[in-house]
């Protein structure tokens, strides 16, 4: 399928979804739907680096929280519209990804993974010590009473924004997969040495993947302060973002754009249901067990069941 046709279809699907939720008009649907959409973006973003290029990023929470805290800063200093904040939050996350990648991506993939895990701890320390953004006490963000443009409750606007970002992220991931860039990434994943020897500019491609991945994660995090209205470092940098994202991508299947989408929808809905019916700690445990189970028994994910 051509990219243009796919984008039109994805936009139509997004519009259809929004109209359906708008007709149901139940605030819970918007709140729950927002989280699922946010995880589609995160899993898709993670997959650009992790699935396509084979470099495991454990720092999802750090990139995500950087977007969120950029919004906190902009909210306190300016009165710019949310989409612009998202672009800036994404840009900062992307830049941090570039710096991290430049320092660690020349080494074995493991070192990059360990560095991302450590980076999350350090950025959390920085934010905890920075009183302007609330420090360890956290920060309250007052959500505007009604939505710009579409009217209605502000959560509808947040939902719509996240829906648009989801369409953008999924279309980009799909376009990348079938481009020269995507072929370069899979060459790196399958055999980096051979790729390098055949003239694939591996470091540059890995940096592009890290920046794109960080960009989308930061954009996904930017609306978070308005969604939660109270943000503190332990919740913004929660390890569960990283675990959920990796679990969703791996359970769905990492080699194509559709895997993370399937994984995020299934696990996202499962978690929403399990946190309401059982408990949120137990629902996290279920995700962890599913992750380990899939990695051992079905390493190609759900998508792998349908292809040989």
């Amino acid at each position, binding site marked *: 399928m051509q990219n243009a046709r796919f984008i039109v279809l994805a936009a139509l699907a997004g519009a259809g979804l929004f109209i359906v939720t708008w007709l149901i008009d139940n605030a819970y649907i918007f709140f729950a739907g927002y989280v699922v959409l946010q995880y589609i973006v995160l899993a898709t973003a993670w997959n650009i680096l992790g699935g396509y290029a084979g470099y495991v990023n454990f720092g999802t929470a750090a990139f995500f929280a950087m977007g969120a805290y950029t919004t906190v800063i902009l909210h306190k200093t300016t009165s710019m519209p949310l989409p612009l904040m998202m672009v800036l939050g994404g840009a900062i996350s992307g830049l941090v990804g570039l710096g991290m990648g430049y*320092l660690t991506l020349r080494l074995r993939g493991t070192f990059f*993974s360990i560095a991302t895990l*450590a980076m999350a701890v*350090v950025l959390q*320390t920085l934010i905890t010590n920075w009183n302007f953004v609330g420090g360890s006490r956290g920060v309250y963000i007052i959500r505007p009473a009604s939505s710009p443009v579409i009217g209605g409750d502000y959560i509808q606007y947040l939902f719509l924004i996240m829906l648009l970002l989801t369409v953008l992220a999924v279309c980009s991931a799909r376009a990348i997969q079938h481009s020269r860039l995507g072929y370069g990434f899979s060459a790196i994943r399958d055999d980096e040495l051979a790729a390098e020897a055949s003239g694939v500019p591996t470091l540059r491609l890995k940096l592009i993947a890290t920046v794109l991945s960080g960009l989308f994660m930061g954009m996904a995090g930017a609306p978070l302060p308005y969604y939660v209205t109270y943000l503190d470092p332990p919740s913004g940098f929660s390890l*569960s973002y990283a675990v959920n994202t990796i679990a969703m991508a791996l359970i769905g299947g990492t080699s194509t754009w559709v895997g993370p989408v399937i994984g995020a929808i299934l696990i996202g809905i499962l978690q929403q249901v399990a946190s309401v019916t059982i408990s949120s*700690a137990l629902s996290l445990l279920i995700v*962890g*067990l599913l992750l380990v189970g899939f990695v051992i028994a079905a390493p190609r994910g759900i998508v792998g069941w349908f292809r040989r």
Partner: protein
Amino acid sequence: MDLPFDLLGNAIISGLLLGGFYAAITIGITISFGMLDIVNIAHPAFILLGSYTAYLANSILGLDPILSGCILLPAFYALGVAIYQVYNIAFEGRSGSSMLGLAFFFGLLFITEVSLVLVFGVDYRLVEAPYVGPSLHAGSIDLPLRLLVPFLVSLALIGALQLFMSRTFIGRALQAVAQDPQALRLMGARPAGIKRIGFALSIATTSIAGAILIVVQPVEPSIGRDYVGRIFAICVLGGLGSFAGTVAAAMILGIVESLTATFYGPSWAPAVAFGLLLAALTVRPAGLLGRR
């Protein structure tokens, strides 16, 4: 005004003691990551498991935490054997295995942490032992026993492991297995069997490392994460798989962290390890004592 000097001296001494403790929590990773090339990022979670078993033995049976850490060594060894068995069957020798192996251990880290939260809650837990409270004094220098005892236990643990590595056939085979499994096979040893022993040993060390962690500080389930950066920073800086390097790097990190905590405030200390890790990876990935 001899106050800053006292402060400096105390910071360096407590940094050295802290470094000794860091060496104990890193030594398992030096074996599994440095020697066997198994990236066990769940290592801190097993250390916390060791802390909580020591806590249980201490609060229910009134056992000394370090003694209970020693008693539980075989149980942790068995746990290590079981995990390696799964790892070996599911990942070693399979394509794309390094990414899946990382995700596997990441999942284990998270499962252990969430399970500990479910069982023990998120309150800080601590142990009671005669050496938790008091300090020795030498002039203006304080030697808190809470740090001194773990320091000595750590050096004993690493000394024993060093003897095992250099004096026994299995120890030497362990050092060889990551470098050349084929040659090891020619010597009449099965690489998978040797790696199993090595990995199980690395998990066994978490029994003692966990026991001294809960002596050094009260624990709650999520603090394991703070140690991921430290452990790998020390392991990389120490030259991946060198015991002497691990001890030296641990002391350096301990001193730098202790100075940071004294002069800038303790909330900045976790950032130090990451700075060292990045510096090590950028400037000298082979580590302090590494061959390059």
